C-alpha cells in the first residue's frame, strides 16, 4: 500500500501521481493501450494519418477527462449518479425524437460542437446509479431491491433498443447486472433470471429487426451466406487465422488493406490486429486488458465503502465484458453485435467514456483514507 498521506508534498514520481490522483499501473496500461490503438489504426485505416491524428486527439481529451474525473471525490459520484442517470434518459429521449441517423440507426445527438451518442453516458450512469442505490442497503439485496435495480437498467435499455442499438443495450444490461452480482444477488435469483431470459428468447427474437435476426442466424451458420451476411465473420476469421503465431507484421495484413475485411478500423479492428501480430500479439493484448481488469478488481477490494466497491468492480467487469464480446464476435465465438474493441477501435465517445470510467476508478483508489498505524 502507498504510504503517502494526503497532504504530504510529493517527492517521488509515484508520490506525485498519487497526489494528482493518478493510479500509476492503470495509467501506464491505458497509455500503452492508447499508443497501440494509434499503431493498429494507422494500419487498419490504410495508413490514414487523419484518422490517427483524430484518434490521438480523442485519446488526449479522454486522458484529460480521466484525470479530471480522478480529482472528484468518490462520494460526489454516488450523489451525482442519479442526476447523470436522469440526464442521460432525457438525452436518449432526445435522440429518438431528433437524433441523426447513421447507417439506418438513430444513435447520434448533434450538439452543434460535438456529435455524440448519449447511450455512452448511460453506460457509465447505470452501474453507478445501481451502486449508489445499494450503498446504504443491507446486502445481499432483497427481491424488491433487485426489481428497482432492474427498473434502473430497464428504462434506458428500452430506449436504446428503439434506436436500435443492441450492442449498447447489452452492455448496459451487463453493467447493471454486474453491480447486482457484486451486491450479492443470490445465486438462485441469478439462475432464475437466466431461466426467464432463456424462456424469453423467442419473444426477443420476434422483436428483433431483420438485420439483427440475420446476424444471429449468420453467427449460427456463417457458411450459409459467405458473400452476404456471413461475409464479415468469414473474412475476419480468415484475417485472424492467416495471422498465425507471429502475424504478418505491422502494415502487412492483407485482409484489411485490400478491403476484404469491412469495418476494419472500428468493430473489426481486432481482426486486423490479430492478422498483423499473430497469437503472441493477441496474448499481449489480452494480458494488457487482463491486467487492467485485475487492477480494477483490486481497487474494488481495497475500496472503503459499498458504493465504491460495487462501482469499481462493475466498471472493471464491464470493461472486461466489452473486450470479451468484441473479440469473441470477431473470432466468430459470439454473434455480431456492434461493440467496439475498448480503447483500440476508432471512435470518440467510446474512447472518452471508457477513460472516464477509469477516471472514476482512479478517484476511488486515490481518495482512500489512510489508516495510520
Amino acid at each position, binding site marked *: 500500500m502507498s504510504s503517502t498521506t494526503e497532504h504530504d508534498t510529493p517527492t517521488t514520481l509515484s508520490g506525485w501521481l498519487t497526489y494528482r490522483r493518478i493510479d500509476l499501473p492503470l495509467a501506464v496500461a491505458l497509455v500503452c493501450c492508447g499508443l497501440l490503438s494509434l499503431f493498429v489504426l494507422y494500419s487498419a485505416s490504410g495508413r490514414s494519418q487523419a484518422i490517427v491524428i483524430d484518434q490521438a486527439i480523442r485519446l488526449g481529451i479522454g486522458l484529460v477527462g480521466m484525470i479530471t474525473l480522478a480529482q472528484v471525490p468518490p462520494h460526489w459520484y454516488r450523489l451525482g449518479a442519479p442526476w447523470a442517470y436522469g440526464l442521460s434518459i432525457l438525452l436518449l429521449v432526445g435522440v429518438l425524437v431528433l437524433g441523426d441517423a447513421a447507417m439506418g440507426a438513430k444513435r447520434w445527438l448533434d450538439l452543434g460542437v460535438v456529435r455524440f451518442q448519449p447511450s455512452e453516458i448511460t453506460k457509465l450512469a447505470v452501474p453507478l446509479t445501481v451502486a449508489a442505490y445499494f450503498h446504504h442497503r443491507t*446486502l445481499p439485496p432483497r427481491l424488491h431491491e433487485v426489481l428497482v435495480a432492474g427498473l434502473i437498467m430497464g428504462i434506458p435499455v428500452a430506449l436504446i433498443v428503439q434506436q436500435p442499438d443492441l450492442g449498447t443495450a447489452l452492455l448496459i444490461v451487463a453493467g447493471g447486472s454486474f453491480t447486482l452480482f457484486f451486491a450479492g444477488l443470490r445465486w438462485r435469483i441469478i439462475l432464475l433470471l437466466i431461466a426467464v431470459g432463456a424462456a424469453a428468447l423467442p419473444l426477443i427474437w420476434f422483436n428483433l429487426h431483420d438485420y439483427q435476426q440475420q446476424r444471429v442466424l449468420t453467427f449460427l451458420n456463417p457458411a450459409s451466406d459467405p458473400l452476404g451476411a456471413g461475409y464479415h465473420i468469414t473474412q475476419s476469421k480468415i484475417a485472424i487465422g*492467416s495471422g498465425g503465431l507471429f502475424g504478418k507484421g505491422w502494415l502487412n495484413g*492483407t485482409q484489411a488493406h485490400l478491403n476484404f475485411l469491412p469495418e476494419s478500423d472500428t468493430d473489426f479492428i481486432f481482426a486486423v490486429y*490479430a492478422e498483423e501480430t499473430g497469437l503472441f500479439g493477441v496474448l499481449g493484448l489480452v494480458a494488457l486488458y487482463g491486467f487492467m481488469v485485475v487492477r480494477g*478488481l483490486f481497487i474494488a477490494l481495497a475500496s472503503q465503502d459499498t458504493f465504491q466497491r460495487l462501482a469499481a468492480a462493475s466498471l472493471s467487469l464491464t470493461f472486461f465484458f466489452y473486450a470479451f464480446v468484441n473479440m469473441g464476435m470477431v473470432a466468430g465465438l459470439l454473434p455480431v453485435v456492434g461493440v467496439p474493441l475498448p480503447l483500440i477501435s476508432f471512435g470518440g465517445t467510446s474512447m472518452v467514456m471508457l477513460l472516464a470510467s477509469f477516471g472514476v476508478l482512479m478517484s476511488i483508489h486515490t481518495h482512500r483514507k489512510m489508516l495510520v498505524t
Partner: protein
Amino acid sequence: MSGDDAIKNHGAERRLFLRRTIAAGVILLVLVGLLLARIYYLQVAKHGYYETRSQDNRMRVEVVPPVRGLIYSRHGQLLANNQPAYQLEIVPEQVAESVKSTLDRLDEIVTITEADRSRFQARLRQTPSFRGTPIKLSLTQREVARFEVNREQFPGVNIRAGLTRHYPMGRYAAHVVGYVGGITERDLSTIDRKRYRGASHIGKAGVELSYESALHGYPGSRVIETNASGRALRQLDESPAEAGQSLVLTLDARLQRAAYDALGDKDGAIVALDPEDGGVLALVSKPGYNSDLFVDGISHKNYARLLNNPHKPLYNRALQGQYPPGSTIKPVMAIGALEAGVIDPDKRVWCPGYITLPGSDHHYRDWKRSGHGWINLTQAIERSSDVYFYKLGMKLGIDNIHRYGTLFGLGHKTGIDLPRENAGIMPSREWKHGHRSQPWYPGETLITVIGQGYMTATPLQLAVVASQIAERGHAYEPHVLKARRDPQTGATTPVAPEALSPIQLTDERHWKTVINAMKGVINDPRGTAHHYVGMNLKYPIAGKSGSAQVAGLPQNEVAPDLSSIPYQLREHALFIAFAPIEDPKIAVAVVVEHGGGGSSVAGPIAREVIDSYLDSLQGEPRGPITAKTEGVPRRVAADS
C-alpha cells in the same frame, strides 16, 4: 426504503464481496480461456487453411498466353507470322452508363454488328468482374484511329493490342501451312487444357495442325494482387510464357509459287520432293484458299462459298486426292517384272492395238489403236504401250503387282508430317475379298498393271515413287519440316530426314534399264512426252506420263477431241519426273484434273517446275540453310 436501513454488517458484506469477486475472477478466467482457445484454434490449428484462404482472397492468377511460333520457308520467307491486332474491349464495371447504350454509341464510330453483340453477350457471362470483354477482335487501322479520337466519350472501353495470325503466302501455300482457328468444344476434349489456358486459337490444318504442339509453346502466369472487388492493384509475380518453336519448312517459297502458277487455271496438284532427303519443295493443290479468312472465325457466307465451290478449294488434292495413276505406274511394274524375272527387257513383244484373254472376247485396248508393233521394254515404256504391259501383267500376276506396288509405297500412307493424308489403293486378292467380297478376275490384273481399275494413288505417293526411282530405291520419307528454331536463342536444330526402307533389287541394273526408258519418254523422238517436254533440255530428265480414266467413261474409249467430252468426264492428266538423272535434285508428280493427255498437259507443267527449281539452284547458289535463315525478318521483303 428507509425501513430497510438495518445496521449494515460491514464484515459480512466484505466477505460477501470477496466471494463474489473470486466468483467473477473464475468466470473471467473461464471466458478468457474460451477466447484464447478460439484464437489458438484459428491462428495455430487452422492457420494453414486460413493462410490459403487469405492468399486466394487477395491473389488472382492471370494466364499469359504464349506467342505462337512462326513458320518459314526453307530460305527464310515467312509463311505464317503474328501481326499486331487491335481488339476493342469493354470493362462493364467502368462504364458510366449502361453497356447497351455504350455499344449503341460505339456503333457510330466502329461498326458493331448483331453478331458482334451476341458474341459479346456470350463472352460477358464468362468474364470475371474488372476484366475486359472483347467486343470486336480485329479493328482496322482506320477504326483504331476513329476510336482514339473519341476515346474520352467511352470510359471503360479500351483498345488492347494483341497478335493475330497472318499467312503472307496466302492461297499459294494454304494446303501446306494450313491455318489456325478458334478452339472448339471438340478441340478441348483432345488437348491439354492447362497448356491452352488463355489461348484462343489452335492449329486446324496443315503444318499449323501437325506441329501444333511445337508451335503453341507454354503459357506463363502473372500473379495479380486484387482488392475485394477484383480490381488489379499490382503484379506480385510473373512467370513468363514460353513462346512456341518457330519452324523452318523444306518448302521453297519461290518454287511453290511457280508450281501454283504453272497449273494455270486448271485444278490439280503438284508435289515436288528433294529426292536426296525427302523434303517437300513444293506441294500445291489448286485452287487454294485464303487461309487468313479462318483466323478470326470465318463467316458463314465465306465458309459456305468455299464448301460449295465446285473446284473444292479446301480439299488438299496433293495428300487426299486419290487418282488412278494410269501409265505413270508402268516403271514400277517394269521393275517388278524384271525383279521377278518374268520378262527379258531386250526381248521384243508383239503389240497390236488390243489383246483378249482366253475364254473372253473382251478387247483390252491399247491407247494407240494401231498398236506399237514389235517393241522391247524400253520402247514399251517410252511409248507407253498398254498391250506390252497387259502381257507383262499376265506373267507377273496380281500378287507380284501388289508386292512391288507396295514396295514403292502404294496403298500406304507415306507418313508425311501433314494431316489427313490418304493411303490410296494398291489392290490385291485380299483387298478385293475384303472390300468387294469377290474373287480376283484375271482381267482386273490387266487394268491394274496400267494403273487403272481399283488402283488409286495420291500425287504425293506418285512423287515418292519418282523419288524412289531417282534414288534407285534409297529415298526418304517425305516431310515438310526442315528445322526447328528456338524462339529465345534463335538456335536452329535441323530435323534429320528418315530413310524409307530401301528397295533392294537383286540386280541393280534394273534401275538403269527403267530410268533409261523414262529418259527416253522425254528424249526419244518416239517418246510420248518428247514433243511436249523434251525440247531444249538443260538437264537430263526422266519422266513418265499417265492418263487416268474418270469413272463413267467406257474403258479405253478415248475420244479424239477432248473438248467434245463434258469436263467432269475428261481424264486426269498425270506426269512423274525427276532430274538431273545422274544426280537427282528434284522429283515431281503432277496431276491435272480432267486435263486430258498426261504428256501434253501434265508434262510441260512438270518441266516448268523442274526448270524453275534447277535454274534457281544454278542461278543463285544458296548456302546452307542455317546461314540463310539468320536475320530472317529482313529477308522477307527481298524474297517476295
